[in-house]
């Protein structure tokens, strides 16, 4: 590791092993009385067990079964989220958008990794990756394809017909999802 820029980049002074870097910074702050190790445990526990995508899923499900709730969520998500006891850090100002037959929404932060923590928890590694940051805005459909998602507006009639099963036409089945493996 280069050691020629200590003043501007104190990270070069830390141990090379990341776990030891965390330990060094935690020790310094704890010895100064500025960090409570029990508070770190509480933060980790909160995001590991309490705040995660199940919260967002509960809101989506409620919007599916309750038109009034859905309209409120789309018009002023922050009020609705606060009323349900959610919201807070990294989700202070939320706009909810919905997909439709002609609109598919996809979220990316190309500059850092902004993400609605109170609704979805801590973002997955790929959301924070250079490849996702770089490509999601320029070639979203190629990125979606890597996730197994093909949007119907990019499909021709033959591809659409391949989604329609016999059972879906009888009514004892549903069409295949675009991009799903057959």
């Amino acid at each position: 590791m280069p050691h020629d820029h200590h003043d501007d980049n104190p990270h070069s002074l830390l141990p090379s092993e990341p776990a030891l870097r965390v330990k060094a910074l935690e020790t310094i702050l704890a010895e100064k009385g500025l960090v409570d190790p029990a508070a770190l445990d509480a933060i980790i526990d909160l995001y590991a067990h309490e705040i995660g995508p199940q919260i967002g899923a509960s809101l989506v499900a409620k919007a599916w079964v309750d038109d009034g709730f859905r309209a409120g969520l789309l018009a002023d998500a922050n009020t609705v989220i606060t009323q349900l006891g959610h919201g807070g850090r990294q989700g202070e100002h939320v706009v909810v958008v919905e997909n439709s037959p002609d609109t598919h929404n996809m979220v990316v932060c190309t500059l850092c990794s902004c993400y609605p923590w109170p609704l979805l928890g801590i973002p997955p590694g790929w959301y924070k990756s250079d490849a996702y940051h770089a490509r999601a805005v320029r070639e979203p459909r190629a990125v979606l394809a890597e996730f197994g998602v093909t949007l119907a507006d990019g499909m021709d009639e033959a591809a659409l017909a391949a989604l329609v099963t016999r059972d879906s036409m009888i009514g004892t089945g549903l069409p295949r999802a675009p991009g799903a493996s057959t």
Partner: protein
Amino acid sequence: MTRIHDMGGRFGDGPVPREADETRVFAIGWHARALALTVAAGALGKWNIDASRHGRERLPPADYARLSYYEKWLAGLAKMLVERGIATAEEIAAGRSPAPAPDDLTEKCLVAARVVPALRSGGPSARSSTAAPAFAIGSRVRTRPIAENETVAGGHTRLPAYAAGRPGTVVLRHGAHVFPDRNAHFHGEAPRHLYTISFAASDLWQHAESAGDEVRLDLWESYLVPE
């Protein structure tokens, strides 16, 4: 392009990396500790979220590219601790501190009992403003031609380089919000109106993947001029 973090639209990154088990919140134990430590240190109030983002953006490009996501957080945290006078370079090198911090700082220590209420309240950026918004929904606007901080060379900005100098349409108005370009440098919150602007893919990219697609960005009023 101002700094290495501003990578939207960049070529050459290859497939988006996936993990075998994406249900795990923290892939490695120290990731969780790095996140928690960063959150707890932020609660001391010696910097704001814009400054901490800028701290990571200012890492040397070679380090930024080499370090993993949470390693960048640790590097940014070490930088903020030294720059804001909480720890010395000697303490960082030793991994120890010989003495407690002053009382006015230790009293801000985030204790375990305060974690849930502190995270629940977060740090809203909306501010009241008497200034009328300059643009209406549906207005055609154009972004500033250079995606750089207007007052600080190499400073923080939230206008991505790929969207500089491009025409777009106002689709939402969010009221006034803290202006990161000033706040990141401790030059005050300088709140100004924030908008969601829609850009046609064909106005952003020479070879748009699908001309009908759009990219929507939240941008502050001073990034925009009437089209």
